[in-house]
């Protein structure tokens, strides 16, 4: 088993990742103070996406994983976005 030592981030990296996540959370809350209409939603979800990338890359060590896992994760995100797209494509083109 010991030959399979997993590469992971260091303690300091985890703490910096936490700081980044807290700053991004604060930023997403701060943005809600402004009435930007649909841009509020887009900004909140974009910030959530950035936070998710930090968790995936550093806490889940995807950054150090093989290309296989990176491709698989990307595929899952693409499938999700595709599902979102076809749902709204259907919704927008319905005639009631």
């Amino acid at each position: 088993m010991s030959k399979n030592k997993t590469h992971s981030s260091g303690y300091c990296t985890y703490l910096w990742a936490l700081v980044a996540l807290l700053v991004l959370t604060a930023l997403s809350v701060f943005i809600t103070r402004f009435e930007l209409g649909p841009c509020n939603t887009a900004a909140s979800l974009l910030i959530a996406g950035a936070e998710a990338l930090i968790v995936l890359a550093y806490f889940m060590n995807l950054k150090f994983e093989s290309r296989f896992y990176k491709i698989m994760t990307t595929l899952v995100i693409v499938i999700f976005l595709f599902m979102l797209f076809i749902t709204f494509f259907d919704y927008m083109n319905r005639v009631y």
Partner: protein
Amino acid sequence: MKTNIYNVPGQDEHDVSKFGMWLFIFAELLLFGALFIVYTAYRSRNPAAFKLAGNELELTVGIISTIILLISSTTMAISVTAIQKNNKNLSLLTLGITILFAIAFLLYKYFEWGTRINEGFLPDTNTLHELGPGTILFFGLYFVMTGLHALHILIGLIFIIYIFFRIIKNRINSENYHLFENFGLFWHLVVLIWIFLFPLFYLIR
């Protein structure tokens, strides 16, 4: 060990278990992804009702829940790395903190749900019926999505306590930590899901 030019997992027991864990994570992401799509679709049809219903949820509760989970994810990551580096005490300390934060999150969720139920927002109550279909949908999704997430936290908490005692008994150590490492992935997944639940229910107005 045979050289695998595609670097595909499956070369030994550890790789297989990690591959299985990642497959489970992908399935979970798609499960919650489908719920996010349902939320987004209903929101697009009932924007005013979702906005009004969203105002009933307290932003402070969402922020504190997020901070609790982000810190717990960090302590979990430190704990796994500490055991890999043969630092048992640090691993137990940070895992202990993760347990406390997990309990804090569940208690916080319990009180939050209690408040919402007392206010009459539980599905199929008269208060909710009077507020219209959009509000019923919002609170239906709120209870299903946060409830399913809290169930994951509860299962995670049971596993953390199990791993905590395995570390104390030296059954998990710097040579045999793969179960812990895989479970750590599950915990980060739960935090990842919350990162998206937070804006959907507490931020987007």
